[in-house]
């Protein structure tokens, strides 16, 4: 499978025609430089493996931030027939609905920068970060079921969300197919004490400033009207509950006889019409609902910190949008002139629906869906909007982040945490982290250049840049 010929379609799009067992071509969104990087690991081979799976339509796709994963590469998008296709836990990933939300404020840099230490201290106090830190919310079985089955509705009913927050989340923060009964005891126990916790690794909560507005009209729809305005970004997912669901269902999928013939056992899947596919999808949707509630509870703690410092009016934070980066959805797409229902897998990719789509909140429908792309620690993040071209070419999907290009082990050896913190402080970026090594691991240089990634999305037409955000203060696990 490793032998392939790459054809250049345009400056930012490459194609590997279907060969061997591939049912469709592999399309790669990349610059010459990022394509070369992808060729140094297994991401292209993994993308070609995805193209071999039953019921796949049009293309197996690798996004601009693609890199090697397990089974599917990270940055993979693939759509499979709802009846004759498949659903693959490894095509979504362990952190189900790992995602991002951004909140806007009316505060300016000059209001917040003098108080950033105080803000971060409060955020760090209110939001449990890192391994072993438990939530202040204790969920009994009944309440946990409500979180899993209802998603953001639970958060609204329990005072963690404003009523308008739900409509500003992908899927309104609640996937209707969720079924808590399809989740194991282990997944429930892992999730029970983790609602409202940030986790570790590349997850963070960040106070940002608007560095540049590229599209003033679209930005205005997000409540962003000028540079130096303050925003808050949260990046986390379904925590141990989602990890366990993926582990449990991959384990079941992996025991099927046909898996031995797959090039990678983590490609294991359930035929779309099987009972197990139905059960996995119900469990995955429940984990997605948990993740939306998790980001919502964290938002409520950050809102609390801002109100305590700036008061009810000035400290108000409005949710702009919340997107999932690791998820499967049942969506209808125009494929070869026919409207078809498919399981769209996005593993390290963001939905990027274009203007007018019925699933975009009404307030954004004219401009296209907000796309939230976080950078790594100390680097910029971006807000883009979805495009018609993304609908046509990528099942309405685009990039999701920077993507690592240096191993954690190497980053720890190479970057001293204190030195890194001082360098960031020199650039007016404040860090609070539960661990020193965690800072080294997440050194900005360990990641791809986020500016390059979003430029590829923009130039390829699968997302249009609206706003660039710069970090002012970050809390991490």
């Amino acid at each position: 499978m490793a032998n392939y010929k790459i054809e250049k379609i345009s400056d930012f799009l490459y194609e590997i025609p279907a060969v061997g067992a591939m049912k469709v071509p592999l399309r790669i969104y990349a610059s010459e430089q990022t394509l070369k990087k992808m060729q140094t690991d297994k991401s292209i081979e993994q993308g070609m493996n995805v193209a071999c799976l039953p019921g796949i339509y049009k293309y197996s796709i690798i996004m601009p931030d693609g890199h090697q994963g397990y089974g599917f590469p990270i940055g993979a998008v693939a759509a499979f027939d709802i009846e004759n296709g498949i659903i693959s836990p490894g095509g979504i990933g362990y952190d189900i609905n790992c995602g991002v939300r951004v909140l806007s404020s009316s505060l300016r840099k000059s209001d917040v920068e003098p108080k950033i230490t105080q803000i971060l201290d409060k955020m760090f106090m209110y939001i449990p970060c890192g391994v072993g830190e438990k939530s202040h919310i204790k969920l009994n079985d009944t309440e946990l079921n409500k979180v899993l089955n209802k998603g953001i509705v639970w958060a609204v009913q329990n005072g963690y969300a404003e009523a308008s927050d739900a409509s500003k989340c992908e899927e309104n923060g609640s996937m209707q197919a969720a079924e808590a009964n399809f989740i194991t005891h282990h997944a429930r126990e892992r999730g029970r004490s983790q609602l409202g916790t940030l986790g570790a690794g590349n997850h963070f909560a960040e106070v940002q400033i608007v560095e540049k507005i590229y599209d003033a009209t679209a930005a205005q729809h997000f409540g962003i009207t000028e540079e130096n305005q303050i925003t808050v970004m949260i990046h986390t997912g379904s925590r141990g509950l989602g990890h366990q669901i993926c582990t449990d269902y991959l384990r079941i999928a992996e025991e099927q006889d046909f898996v031995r013939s797959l090039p990678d056992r983590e490609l294991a899947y359930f035929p779309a019409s099987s009972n197990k596919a139905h059960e996995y999808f119900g469990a995955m949707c429940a984990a997605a609902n948990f993740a939306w509630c998790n980001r919502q509870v964290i938002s409520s703690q950050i809102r609390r910190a801002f109100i305590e410092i700036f008061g009810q009016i000035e400290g108000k934070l409005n949710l702009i949008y919340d997107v999932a980066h690791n998820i499967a959805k049942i969506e209808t797409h125009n494929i070869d002139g026919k409207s078809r229902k498919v399981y769209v897998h996005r593993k390290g990719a963001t939905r990027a629906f274009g203007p007018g789509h019925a699933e975009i909140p009404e307030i954004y429908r004219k401009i296209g869906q907000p796309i939230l792309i976080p950078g790594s620690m100390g680097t910029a993040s971006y807000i883009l909007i979805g495009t018609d071209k993304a609908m046509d070419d990528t099942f309405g999907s685009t990039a999701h982040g920077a993507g690592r290009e240096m191993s954690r082990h190497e980053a720890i050896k190479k970057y001293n945490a204190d030195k890194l913190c001082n360098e960031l402080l020199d650039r007016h970026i404040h860090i609070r982290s539960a661990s020193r090594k965690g800072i080294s691991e997440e050194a900005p240089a360990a990641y791809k250049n986020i500016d390059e990634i979003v430029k590829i999305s923009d130039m390829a037409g699968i997302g249009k840049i609206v706003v660039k955000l710069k970090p002012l203060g970050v809390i991490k696990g």
Partner: protein
Amino acid sequence: MEKFKYLTHTADAKFVAKGRTHENVFMNSAYAMFNLLTDIKRVRGKTSVKIFLKSKTIENLLIDFLNELLFLLEVKNFVPAMKGHTIKITLRPGEAEIKGRIKGDNIKKYEHHGHIKSATYNEFSFKKIPRAYRAQIVVDI
């Protein structure tokens, strides 16, 4: 014999563990995995957890064992110590079983960082080598 060593992996973590017995290679895999989070040599055997798992094959049992330990980490903050385990692995036709106790402590008592989502089948191998067993595992971080 080196208990474990890390191999290069950009996004996640990959390691090889070796042991003269099934029990040894299982525990050395566990040490390699938890050493990604904390200095495993420092962990003391202050408490213990009971392990009892059955899988179809020894390979599946190893992945299940590591994932069970990740479950105990998140639910009980448990991290294993490098000595004091009393696990026994039994192989029967179509079944592999691990049973026993593992000593360890609360990870919050030790400097720690990062997290692990799952032990995976990606690039996974388990084989007999001269006078030992060798496991290669990628954990998703």
